[in-house]
């Protein structure tokens, strides 16, 4: 149960980037988990030079921000601007992008699992009979900070509010003298930057392999849809729900059923309440 809560917060953190990109900007960002795994591998590379994974993740954020801006710019120029049929082609574009990233990682690093070293990995905290691995606690802490930070950013700062505004009413924003494309670009950059840190946490929590993004397509989209598109607090709750239900299934039915939980939950939510728990 406790394990589920910790993992749940971690799931929320890996999903906030998608929540911004897909929930607020309406970009069908299927490549999000692939970028996250890319972040993990970059962390791994820096880790070999003795960088702490969290520091590495933060250091990667500006780079990923630029990457995100570039991806959105490209997406906008080729699909959103042309307008017609953007849905199908945009989806295909991001799906293809995910595969390119995944195979690129396989070619560079091979299919083996990789992990990082740090003081808090491999040790655990004993708390009244329970042993909680430190690596989960660290990921939990960073996840909470990340989600809280992003929530504050979106509700308190000017740009943050503009991002929310662009999701609600783009023409109105244009009338107010703000360039919606620049705002979206900025937001997508932030979403991708957050993904870098999420990737760092991913490799802290456990070993990473290139095809890991496939499972996380289910987890991240499940959390985002369950939360209600673009709701940050909802993301946290949805992450917790997923984490807890996954750990329940894990203990009741065994590990081989666990991958289906996120996808099953996703199907149920889509079938019954597509606007999510905290949907607008």
């Amino acid at each position, binding site marked *: 149960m406790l394990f589920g809560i910790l993992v749940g917060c971690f799931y929320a953190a890996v999903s906030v980037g998608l929540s911004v990109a897909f929930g607020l900007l309406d970009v069908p960002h299927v490549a999000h988990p692939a970028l996250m795994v890319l972040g993990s591998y970059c962390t791994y590379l820096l880790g070999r030079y003795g960088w702490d994974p969290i520091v590495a993740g933060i250091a990667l954020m500006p780079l990923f921000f630029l990457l995100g801006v570039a991806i959105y710019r490209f997406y906008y120029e080729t699909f959103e601007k042309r307008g017609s049929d953007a849905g199908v082609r945009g989806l295909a*574009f991001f799906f293809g992008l995910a595969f390119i990233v995944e195979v690129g990682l396989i070619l560079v690093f091979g299919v083996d699992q990789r992990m990082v070293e740090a003081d808090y990995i491999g040790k655990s905290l004993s708390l009244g009979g329970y042993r909680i691995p430190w690596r989960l606690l660290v990921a939990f802490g960073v996840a909470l900070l990340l989600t809280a930070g992003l929530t504050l950013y979106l509700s308190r700062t000017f740009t943050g509010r503009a991002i929310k505004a662009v999701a609600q009413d783009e023409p109105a924003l244009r009338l107010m003298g703000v360039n919606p494309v620049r705002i979206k670009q900025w937001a997508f950059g932030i979403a991708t930057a957050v993904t870098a840190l999420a990737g760092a946490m991913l490799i802290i929590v456990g070993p990473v392999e290139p095809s890991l993004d496939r499972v996380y*397509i289910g987890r991240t989209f499940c959390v985002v849809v369950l939360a209600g598109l673009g709701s940050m607090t909802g993301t946290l709750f949805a992450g917790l729900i997923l984490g807890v239900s996954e750990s329940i299934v894990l203990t009741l039915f065994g590990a081989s059923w666990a991958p289906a939980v996120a996808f099953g939950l996703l199907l149920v939510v889509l079938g019954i309440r597509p606007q999510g728990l905290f949907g607008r």
Partner: protein
Amino acid sequence: MKFWIGVALAVALAAGLALSGTNEYFFYAGYVVLQFVVLATAWNILGGYAGYVNFGTAAFFGIGAYTAVVLFKAAGAPLGVQILAAACASGLLGFGTGLLTLRLRGIFFSIATVAVIFIMQTAIVNWRYVGGATGVQLLRPPAMPPFDSYTRMLFVVMAIMAVAGVCIARYIEVSWIGRGLRAIRDSEEAAECSGVPTLKLKLFACTVSGALMGAAGAPLPMYMSFLEPASSFDLNYSVSALAMPMIGGTSHWLGPVIGAILLGSVQQIVTVTISNEINVLVVGVLLVVFVVAAPDGVLGLLRRLKWFRRSSG
């Protein structure tokens, strides 16, 4: 009329090749290319005509393959029965998926189809009877009389299925069903308002598309003599089945066929000469390049060329 002559020629060509003595590997590779013709054509019925992007090809394909395994293990059913049953099972799965998610906007449908892959895969992994995660070994029955090897027979079977698939897709395209689906792609609200039964049409397309994918998967266990969940539910099938129509052109039944033959052959060559990873990379890169640079695929390029010639000459 031209179309039916083409159909007859294609079947005759496949059978003729299989009966004459060419390199055995040709049939081994040709089977895979034809299998992708079926998958791409099936994908295009829903994805190309109606604009609903299906990422779940692997789920329908895998369920088709496992239906065949179950029937073979339980009753030793012949190949034809296996294929029919696989088509029914996958069609049912398509109907169910459609019922659950086709009311939603495009991307939610797409994500839901990814979910179907993983749920089906997990279910099969936990099903002991079909071998679970380790897979199941199967003994091929002897080949039927006119063919001297089983691979050749499967090649012809797959060729017939490819032709049948294309006929179905072409029928849907030129009939009122295709017109309805195209209306849905262009604007679902407008289609609904002008009296197109959108949900029914989408469900029909999803079921037919799923059934064809399942049929394409049914001979796989016999082809490999072995089946395991990780490779039969591989997301690579999904990306290939999506990339091929996109590369060939989605608006015409010929598009997926061109795409599948082009990309399928390239894939076979790359897999043999370089490696399987590069093969997936090629699919991904080609998909992105075509989607960005040539939104109407090879057919679109050809059409533009024709138009260019006519207007200049």
